[in-house]
Each structure stands twice: as structure tokens, then as C-alpha cells.
């Protein structure tokens, strides 16, 4: 997971090089994503490549949040299913993200989901209970059809919620999400920190990648003990480097007239009326769906 984000940076850059000389841009980035590194850390990369990136970010954020809340509040498997399908449509068909990449992002939390759902679905007792039980020495593990159904519905709900959230993150660069937060009157200090942190994350990933290569080229990950020592050394050195960089950045900011107010130029992207109408219709449809189906998740 770790390096993949850093690697994506170099991938993207490597892609740029060619463009540099040949001046055809953008299209190149829509290459089929190799599964080699198609992990969640590539989300930032996908967001910039998305074909719905130009949609108004406020709309995307609010639409995704409302959908997310409805999935949880309505707690209805049909609603979840509709959300899963429509979010996949938006992200994959409209956004142009390769299906394999989309699924790999969806699967990031799979460990948690499996373990968490098992813990919910089974129960312990000293007596044999439920429809299905298993004796494990000191007591029984049991579950029931109801429980199993609850597990399945919960999984649907979780995937619905996740797909609503990643529809936003796979189509909206973080800088634009931060811009939406700023409009929502999140305290200025937090916004400033978020802007800087977002930028610095990529700086430090580069630093980390270089240090890791340097350590690796000297056999620094040969065995577990060596790896621990290397990891610790790289981490503490990365901290030292980041402190130096923090100073350098402040100097560079002052040199351009920074006086304590960190305001970045943002470009307004027009809100399309059609998006508003379709979005509202979708939300109403979800609510109606809940009213018309008796299920509780």
C-alpha cells in the first residue's frame, strides 16, 4: 500500500515526460491501469483523471454526502443496492474509471468488513441456541437465518455507503474538496492546515520513496530485524527532513508576501442545472423506495 501512492506520482510524471516533448496531454492518462499497483492510494491519481472532474465540486460533495446519509438513515437493502449501482455508473461509465480499478478501490476495506461482519453475525452461548451452532469446547458459537440476513444487508449498506463516498473522492481532487469545506465555513485555520498538509503529503512521499530505495539498494530490507531498524531510521530521518522543509517553505511563502493569511486562488466551476435536477430526483427516488419497501436492514 505504502509505496503505491509514491509510485503513482512517478507513474504520472513519467507519463508527463513524453507529453512534454510531444504536447499531447491528458488522453495519455487514461491508459488502462495495470493491476500491479491498483490500490487505494491511487485515488488521488484517479480523481485528476476522472472525466467528471469538471463537475461543480460543491455539487459532487453535497450529492455524495446526502446519498451517503440516506444509505445509513434509510437502512434499506434496496436503497443500498440502487446506490451501489448508480454510483458505479457515475464513477465507471461517466467518470471513465476502469472497472478493475474501481473494484480494487472498493475492496480496500474488505478485511475490516469481513472480520467486522463475522463478529456481528455470530454469537456465543453456553447452551446450543439459534438455527446453526457449533460446539467449541467451552460453549457454542451460533447464528441464525435472521442473523445471516442482517449480515448480508449490512454488507450491502456498507458497500452502498462506501461507493457514495468514493464517487466523490474518485472524481474530485482534494484541493477542491477543501475548497468546498472552506465555503462551508470550516474554521480558516483548519482549511489552511488541510491545504498545506495535502501538498506536503506528496512531498514526503517522494522523500520516503527515495530513502526507501536508498536503503533497499544497500540490502536494508533483508530480514525482519533489519527491516524494523531501517523503517525506524527512515521514519526519523524523514522527520528531520520534513522539519527542514517546513522552514524552507515558510521562507518561500514570506518571500512572496505571505503575512499570516493563507488564501488560495480557486476557480469557480459552474453548477449545471441538469445536475441539480437529476440529483434531486435521485434523492427523492431513494426516499420513495424506502417508503414503498417494508424491509429494515
Amino acid at each position, binding site marked *: 500500500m505504502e509505496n503505491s501512492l509514491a509510485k503513482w*506520482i512517478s507513474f*504520472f*510524471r513519467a507519463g*508527463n*515526460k513524453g507529453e*512534454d*516533448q510531444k504536447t499531447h*496531454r491528458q488522453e495519455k492518462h487514461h491508459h488502462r491501469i495495470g493491476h500491479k499497483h491498483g490500490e487505494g492510494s491511487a485515488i*488521488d*491519481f484517479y480523481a*485528476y483523471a476522472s472525466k467528471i472532474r469538471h463537475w461543480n465540486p460543491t455539487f459532487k460533495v453535497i450529492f455524495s454526502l446526502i446519498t451517503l446519509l440516506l444509505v445509513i438513515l434509510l437502512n434499506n437493502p434496496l436503497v443500498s443496492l440502487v446506490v451501489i449501482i448508480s454510483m458505479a455508473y457515475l464513477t465507471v461509465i461517466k467518470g471513465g474509471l476502469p472497472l478493475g480499478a474501481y473494484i480494487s478501490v472498493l475492496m480496500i476495506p474488505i478485511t475490516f468488513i469481513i472480520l467486522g461482519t463475522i463478529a456481528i453475525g455470530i454469537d456465543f452461548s453456553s447452551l446450543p441456541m439459534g438455527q446453526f451452532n457449533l460446539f467449541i469446547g467451552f460453549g457454542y458459537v451460533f447464528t441464525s437465518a435472521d442473523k445471516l440476513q442482517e449480515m448480508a444487508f449490512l454488507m450491502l449498506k456498507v458497500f452502498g455507503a462506501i461507493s457514495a463516498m468514493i464517487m466523490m473522492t474518485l472524481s474530485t*481532487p*482534494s*484541493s477542491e474538496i*477543501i475548497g468546498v469545506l472552506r465555503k462551508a465555513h470550516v474554521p480558516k485555520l483548519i482549511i489552511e492546515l488541510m*491545504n*498545506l498538509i*495535502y*501538498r506536503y503529503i*506528496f*512531498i514526503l512521499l*517522494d522523500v520516503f520513496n527515495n530513502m526507501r530505495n536508498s536503503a533497499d539498494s544497500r540490502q536494508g530490507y533483508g530480514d525482519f530485524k533489519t527491516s524494523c531498524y531501517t523503517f525506524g531510521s527512515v521514519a526519523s530521518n524523514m522527520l528531520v527532513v520534513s522539519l527542514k*522543509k517546513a522552514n*524552507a*517553505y515558510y*521562507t*518561500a*511563502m*514570506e*518571500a*512572496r*508576501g*505571505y*503575512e499570516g*493569511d493563507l*488564501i*488560495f*486562488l*480557486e*476557480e469557480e466551476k459552474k453548477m449545471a442545472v441538469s445536475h441539480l435536477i437529476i440529483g434531486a430526483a435521485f434523492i427523492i427516488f431513494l426516499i420513495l423506495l424506502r417508503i414503498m419497501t417494508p424491509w429494515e436492514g
Partner: protein
Amino acid sequence: MREPILKFSNLYYRYGNGNPALDGISVDIYQGEKIAVIGSNGSGKSTFFLNANGVLKADHGEISYQGTIINKKNVRELRKNIGIVFQDADNQIIASTVMAEVGFGPMNLKLPKAEVIQRVDEALTYMNILDFKDRPPHYLSGGEKKRVTIADVIAMKSEVIIFDEPTAALDPLNAQMLEEVLGKLGAEGKTMLISTHDVDFAYRWAERAMVFNQGKIIADGTPLEIFQNREILEQANLKRPVMLDVYEMLIEKEMVENTNAYPTTPQALRDLLVNTALSAGKA
């Protein structure tokens, strides 16, 4: 007499550890000059630049910009009119899109938003990177980032532009881009100071050179004067530009006439040879 655009009088600066980084710097800089600032690492060049821009405040001495002495109140004038392109673009770019980055300086000048946008567009067009507007800097290549940092300063419309070792680590294509931009800025009458370790570049580009050594300016003159002064070169550990060596050698061997032409590029030497090559042999 022409008034200097920037005047430094007797500047002293020392960092916390007690070693003086600037040890009495007095120098006048005039509108439109193209100055190479030479000297080993740690000789005080960067400290000098940061003082010139008002980020560092000298312990003693004063700076005047266009005749006005700079004090705490008008230090903004320095930051506004003297722009620095830092050596490492990754330590300069702070915003997460190219547009926000280039707009950062103008925003700090509290310009109206429409003007900021116009200046950003102009600067990006100037550097030929208008297409990158919405890109985050982390997906740009080294040369592209360099262009963004130059656009940063162009958007400030600074009168004086300082480049801190701009050529280090640039590949040939980007080095060429840089020289083109320098030529364009020079043609617009911008005053430029460039620190560099590349003596061939300094010899070729600059009209004036200053040599820093241990916090002092030990030489200030035309590149030719400086690179002909063996003592200075030795003191500052500088090599001589190849073209200077070659030319002097040809004169010494009487293969070209000594017209004080001092070509700085192979192309100029070629022109010279075509025009003035001696036809007289020697024994």
C-alpha cells in the same frame, strides 16, 4: 547620475550560531542589469538574496529600493518588487494546483480577484504552461515545476528577479527553456541576479559578476575582468570559462588577432574566425 534600483550599504547578518553570513556587503544594483552571483556554497549568496527580498532583516546596514530606505513599514515593497525563484522548486511550491500556486503572490498583494486571475493567466502563458492550470504540482516533472516557480515571480510583476541556482539538475531541454526565458525577461528590461556555479553560463550570460567569499563580496565587475583575475579565481575556487581559455590560447599562439572580442560561445568564436582569422603563419 543614474540612481540604483537597489542599494545595499554595509549589510551585516549572522545566524544564531555566531558565524557571520554577511560581513559588510555594500553594492549598488541598477535597473536592467544582468548579474551573475558566484561563490561556493555557504559564502553568503542565499543570505544576501533573502535580505534583498526582505525575508531576513540585516543586523546592521541598510537597503534602499529606488531611493527609499527600507524599514519595517515598507518592507512589503521589497517583497513585492524583488522576486526569488528558489533553487528547489519542491521547497517553493505550496499550493495544490498550479493556478493557486501562481496566484499565491498576487493574492498576498491583496489585488482584486479579477486581476489575480488575469495575472495568473498571463504568467502561465508567458511560461507556456497554461494547460497545467488545474494540475497538482505533484504530477509535474522537474522542469515543469521550475517553470511554475518562475511563473510565480512573473505573476508578482517584480522589477528585480533573483534566481538561486536555476540551472542545477535541469536537463538540456529545460536548461534551454530557462535561457530563453532569461533572454525574454532581459529584453523587457528586468533586473536579474542569478547565482550559479556554472562559470561558462556566467561568462556567456552576465553583464556583471559578483564573487562572494565568506560573507564578503571580493570582486565585482564584468565577467571578463573577474575571470581574468587569477587571484580572485583562486580565492573563490573558481574555474575559468572554457571559451575564455580557448580564446586566450589562440591569441597566445597568434592564431587569431587580439581584438578583445572575447567570444563567449562556440558560435561567436566561429564568426570571429570567419572574419578575422590570421593568415600569417609563424615559425
